[in-house]
């Protein structure tokens, strides 16, 4: 079973709000000093799903694929230390100008170039730009089946059977490989890297591709949507503090306040 897992390096979403700074002119988030980026949470779930599928099928290769510019190798190697086999990075300054359509074109081209994938697995969305449609775009571009929010998956030969989460239950789908699935935290906790895994990962060197290696040039990648403003929303900052003679009194006053404001 050959699997490609798409992952993204993101600013740690647990960065304290006080350390979250936006350059409004450059329309960029300035990474906080001393807080290292992380692999997007749902992408770690995707790596876990890939590892479980590989273990169940008894063989194959897991290739981790990512796109970006300033990769922190210690961070990016986490999927390798969890047990993935190889890594391909599309590392190119031109990717900075891409919109989601451009990113999809690049990732789809890389998936084709890697070749022989039975399964593409992506995190449902990334915690930075929250687009949630890159995986859908990849499945449309590659014209392969797509099952979203997968809770459980079973594969035998070329058959896929997966549970796809609904707000009030789940659907069970069957399809054929090659296919794409997305996962989120409902899939289950990603495993921790073992010491052995970390040692093995440290000896692996990711393959680096540029956009031109994928046969893509500027004119293919004109953005169809443009970021025109990025700012930090001003919080209302007018929290009315309720304080009674003691905590018991405070609880009572809070309830009365909510009634007075007709909230309850």
């Amino acid at each position, binding site marked *: 079973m050959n699997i490609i897992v798409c992952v993204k390096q993101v*600013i740690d*979403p*647990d960065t304290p*709000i006080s350390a*979250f700074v*936006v350059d409004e002119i450059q*329309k960029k988030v300035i990474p906080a000093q001393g807080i290292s980026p992380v692999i997007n*949470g749902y992408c770690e779930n995707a790596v876990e799903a890939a590892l479980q599928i590989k273990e169940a099928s008894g063989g194959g290769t897991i290739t981790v694929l990512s796109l970006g510019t300033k990769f922190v190798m210690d961070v990016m190697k986490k999927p390798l230390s969890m047990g993935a086999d190889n890594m391909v990075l599309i590392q190119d300054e031109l990717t900075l100008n891409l*919109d*989601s*359509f451009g990113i999809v074109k690049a990732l789809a081209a890389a998936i084709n170039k890697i070749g022989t994938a039975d399964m593409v697995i992506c995190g449902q969305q990334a*915690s930075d*730009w*929250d*687009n*949630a*449609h890159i995986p*859908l*775009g990849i*499945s*449309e571009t590659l014209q*392969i*089946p*797509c*099952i979203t929010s997968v809770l459980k998956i079973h594969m035998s030969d070329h058959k896929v*059977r997966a*549970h796809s*989460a*609904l707000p*009030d*239950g*789940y*659907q*069970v*789908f069957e*399809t054929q490989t090659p296919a794409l699935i997305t996962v*989120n*935290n409902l899939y289950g906790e990603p495993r921790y890297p073992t010491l052995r895994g970390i040692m093995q990962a440290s000896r692996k060197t990711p393959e680096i591709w540029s956009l031109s290696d994928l046969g893509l040039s500027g004119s293919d990648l004109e*953005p*169809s*949507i*443009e*970021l*025109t403003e*990025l*700012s*930090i929303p001003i*919080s209302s900052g007018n*929290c009315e*503090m*309720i304080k009674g003679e003691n*905590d*018991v009194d405070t*609880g009572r006053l*809070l*309830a*009365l306040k*909510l*009634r007075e404001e007709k909230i*309850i």
Partner: protein
Amino acid sequence: MSEILVFSEVKQNKLDSSTGELLSAGQKLSKELNIPLSIIIFNATDSLKDEARQWGADNIYTANDQLLESSIDEVYLEALQQVCAFVNPSVILAAKTSLGRNVAARIAYRLNSSVAQDCIDISGDEKTGKITVTRPVYGGNARAKFTFNGTATKVAILRVKSFECPEQNISKVSEVHQINIKIDKSKLKLNLVDTVKQESKGIKLEEASVIVGGGRGLGGPEPFKHLEELAKILNGAVGASRAVCDAGWLDHSYQIGLTGKTVTPELYITIGISGASQHMAGCSSSKNIVAINKDEDANIFKAANFGVIGDWETILPSFTKTIRELIDS
């Protein structure tokens, strides 16, 4: 070309309130761009068409196929693609529901157009024809505005409850057009084998108008019974922060936040929740936030409307008791 097409969703034989919200946003955009507002209703009944009329649609498109009876993304995608071939809309509006967000994003790629997800505002400029959307990004820590380029169909997926559902009284003289579509079953890539409904106990988090949320500050799973009690009095639901679910005090279906559920209640009472951006991403659209926390520097107080600094163990019982008295009286 030059019309706004709303992708409608039907729940219990009625247009979903999220569709009403789309028509509300669509009416605003229709005025700004001076183009008509249309809606596609699949397998429409007369009462559904009436609802769309009362919600202010100029054109009502209907298209029927038996396969649309089951809610499969791929089937709706095929159907919408055939509708778009007929209508050729300049804008498609869909709601960020489990169906809407997948179908709308995928149609954008099929039409080789452009898409913006999770929009909380949308506006158009008649002179330039440009459409701009506002989206919370970085877990709600930042706000981004995007402008669509080019002439291809623009797809905007709107966050549920970002727009008020209009009153159903607009009584438009809408034109109804029947579009013939045919879903070719052999072209579908997925085979739906089973649909399993899991009845949730009580009120669903996403639909609750009151939520009582607990965080790490509660110290363990046991105190959640007090939150349940309060939620029950207020006819609401219990939610939790990621820390609570990661610790296994409650399962992940209770989780509110970036990696959990997005909620938009009228009242969100948080107890022992610090208000990390992770969490706020899922609840910042709540109408009123009440925070009970012992740390006066907790971030939650920046977002809250009413705050109490102190020990929940003594505050909560008297708060709950007074609420019960107020509700009962």
